[in-house]
């Protein structure tokens, strides 16, 4: 792109943001709310969302800004079960996601390797994978609560289950589609099976495996919010649910922003890692 035109996109982003904030401000102004809500679509949407709490529950951008500042200036306080800093709640959620995701990677990548290497195992396990894959991870929750009898571990289990499939399927696919030529090179050079697995198949399949991991962490972060709403106790999902009961829309909006931010962070981290293992042919 042209050097001098590079600032255009960010500028446009800024304009969109200001426009959005402006509409929001207008829609939520206490006195003007009724007049504007009739002809503005945004206002209608926001108004509907706040309907449960009446006109005054929908905060203005300034109120949300103040709330955000409040959260950011003291993210890690802990005043009992229902009053913890948003940093602590997010940390709980991130820890669960990383734990469930990490365990899933430990299972999915070696298993995917075996499936990808052996057409027999692939065909044998395929029907199970096809049936288990489309199940909503939350459907496992009651079963997990019943067998594990611990809500925290159950949430991790749900994350584990939902992260498993993309990594498993991608690893198996990546491993099974390694170029024949590269395997033949290893064979003619009498490279041991173990070295072939680690130095040829793994690097060859790494970009596909990383794609699976990136999909998995995205899904895990989506699912954790819902899972924590169900199990309660700690975490950003529980925080959102709790603030809904408190009718604190400003807190909910702050939490939504943080959820998006962390999700983006997780995704870009894995995208970076993926770029590190990608090769040009």
């Amino acid at each position, binding site marked *: 792109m042209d050097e001098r035109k590079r600032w255009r996109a960010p500028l446009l982003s800024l304009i969109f943001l200001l426009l959005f904030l402006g509409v929001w401000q207008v829609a939520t102004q206490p006195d003007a709310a009724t007049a504007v809500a009739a002809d503005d679509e945004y206002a209608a949407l926001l108004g509907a969302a706040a309907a449960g709490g009446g006109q005054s529950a929908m905060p203005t951008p300034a109120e949300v800004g103040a709330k955000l500042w409040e959260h950011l200036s003291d993210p890690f306080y802990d005043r009992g079960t229902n009053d913890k800093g948003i940093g602590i709640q997010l940390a709980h959620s991130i820890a669960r996601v990383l734990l469930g995701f990490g365990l899933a990677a430990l299972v999915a990548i070696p298993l995917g390797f075996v499936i990808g290497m052996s057409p027999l195992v692939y065909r044998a396990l395929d029907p199970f994978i096809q049936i288990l894959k489309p199940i909503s991870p939350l459907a496992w929750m009651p079963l997990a609560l019943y067998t594990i009898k611990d809500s925290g571990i159950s949430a991790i289990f749900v994350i584990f289950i939902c992260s498993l499939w993309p990594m498993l399927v991608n690893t198996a696919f990546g491993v099974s589609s390694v170029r024949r030529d590269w395997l033949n090179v290893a064979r003619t050079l009498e*490279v041991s099976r173990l070295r072939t697995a680690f130095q040829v198949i793994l690097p060859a399949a790494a970009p596909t495996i990383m794609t699976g991991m990136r999909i998995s962490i995205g899904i895990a972060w989506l699912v954790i919010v819902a899972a924590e709403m169900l199990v309660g106790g700690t975490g950003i999902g529980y925080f959102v649910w709790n603030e809904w009961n408190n009718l604190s829309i400003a807190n909910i909006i702050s939490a939504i922003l943080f959820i998006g931010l962390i999700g983006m962070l997780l995704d870009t981290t894995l995208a970076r890692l993926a770029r590190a293992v990608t090769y*040009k042919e």
Partner: protein
Amino acid sequence: MNAPFLKVEGLAKRFPGPRGKDGLTVFENVHFGIEKGEFVCIIGHSGCGKTTILNVLAGLDEASDGVVIMDGKEVRGPSLDRGVVFQGHALLPWLSTLKNVEFGVRSRYPDWTRHQIEAHSTKYLEMVGLGHALHKKPAELSGGMKQRVGIARAFAIEPKMLLLDEPFGALDALTRGTIQDELLKIVLATAQTVFMITHDVDEAILLADKIVLMSNGPLARIAEIVEVTLPRERSRTTMHHDPQFYRIRNHLVDFLVNRSKAFAEEAGAEGCDPRHPPVVRPGLAAPSAEIVALPAGQPAQTHVTKASA
């Protein structure tokens, strides 16, 4: 008579046909031998089974019938004794040039130190003129450079024999020429035994001691073995001044254009023995009947087109 260094006996490859239909016999009754230090090229039309034969020699593919014996041992599976240069270079794209060569060297000499392996690999890369590109990834190299890395990788494991599948097929004429010169130099210096597939008649004459001619598939077989009687010290630029060159070249082109297709019947009529395919030396024959007229000004690079017709 001593058994040759590499002996191919009664090789055949058949593919089972679809249910109820006849299978496909690509080639059968293939017999030939390669002496130590000999450079053998194989020429034949596309689909006659050259790659299949090379893969069987490499141990990457199994023949339906027949055996390959190298140095007194039957070939069963790939081995470091036979270095392969693949048609599509087959470099590992995530490794640098040097690491690609080291990958094989480490396997060949497992108890060498890292330093020894690097020095050895560097030596072979310098030999193919790539001393300046040790740390480049394959994607950053030109087609000719990639092919040279493939050649260095195969040479660096110091195999008893080298197998090359149309190594220069994808290169332009100019690049091909320089790499041919390099290969010729290295092979002369190391007295390497080589089996190479090519579609280029001039390339075969430049490099080979013996050229194996295959008839068209299916049911392909060895039609003839042409001995290249030109002196071993050849060069691309002066070779065509030797009167032998055109005799050999005409013989080869004539075979590919006129005789390869009808060979099955011809051979059947003469009743020649597939175990001992006729060995001919067209270079020494009197320059009479066999000359095929070439269009005036035809360059020395006739490339046999890949046509199955």
